[in-house]
């Protein structure tokens, strides 16, 4: 099968789909691969670190280890403040640190995406370049953007989430 045809059929994996963690951010639905989410914890105020990037809130201690806390709203240039009690996804295997905390508005559920239900993204989705997206899907009639957090954390490129 030609690579292009393979992409057009879907990017959910060869074993019949993928499990993702579905979450909300600025009124939109996003997902990250379940295998990269070690745990979901309540937000608590991080300790501020010096000369941190604008989207980095600082560090928190979790089970004797310290991890950087990144705010996905700020990473996507969303100016409006998030909810008072956001959630933190502990992401593993992405970026230079063993794990990182990703602040999102609300975690909804774990979702199974059938391989033929995940489509190759257009060049940009909500202003996010396709390079940082593993696929798009339909979740209850709304677009779902499956993020490639590994690539997202590896770049300093400014990203602006569009309506």
């Amino acid at each position, binding site marked *: 099968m030609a690579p292009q045809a393979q992409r057009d059929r879907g990017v959910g994996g060869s074993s019949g789909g993928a499990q993702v963690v579905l979450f909300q951010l600025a009124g939109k639905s996003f997902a990250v691969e379940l295998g990269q989410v070690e745990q979901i914890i309540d937000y608590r105020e991080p*300790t*501020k*670190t*010096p*000369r*941190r*990037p604008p989207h*980095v809130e*600082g*560090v928190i*201690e979790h089970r*004797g*280890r*310290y*991890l*950087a806390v*990144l705010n996905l709203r700020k990473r996507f240039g969303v100016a409006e403040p998030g909810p008072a009690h956001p959630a933190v996804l502990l992401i593993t295997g992405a*970026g*230079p*640190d063993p794990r*990182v905390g990703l602040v999102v508005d609300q975690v909804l559920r774990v979702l199974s995406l059938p391989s033929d239900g995940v489509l190759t993204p257009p060049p940009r989705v909500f202003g996010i370049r396709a390079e940082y997206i593993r696929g798009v899907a339909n979740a209850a009639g709304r677009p779902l953007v499956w993020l490639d957090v590994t690539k997202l*954390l590896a770049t300093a490129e400014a990203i602006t989430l569009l309506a």
Partner: protein
Amino acid sequence: MEGRTLVRRAARGRVQTPVAREQVLLFRVGEGLYGIGIRGLWEVLSPEGITSLPTPQYQICTALAYRGRRLPLVRLGELFGVSADTVPPNARVLLTQGRGQPLGLLVDEVLGVVDVDPQHIAPMPVLASMLSPALFRGLVGKEDRVIILVSEDGLGEMAEVARFSDG
């Protein structure tokens, strides 16, 4: 003490494992809580007692004239991006050494000395700061607070410091 067994038998026959503690001087820069091992510290000065050469406001390092010597002085507020327009009233200069060379660190306030367990010092996450990880020895928790430990050796290796060193 390094190289010496840490396990000793107590009088009642129970085996105890003494925890090798380390004393850390706590200080504040901006809103941040920082620490440095006291082993390499040799003096804490008030800025009034020293003379620093005229330096552009946003320069990280300057030269410090101290007892006939010229020492590099790192302005941690500038380095950490939290510098105030004026030197805070409780500011202090910590005289220590980085890579064996004398080094001054300008901090906003000295808060005291605490004991920490070196085994509980964890590395600073790479994503947590745009500064070189070499500038930080790590992070350690103390009474619900996180102390950011700076590395004298890492600070002493900065190119800005080398420019102001004697040798």
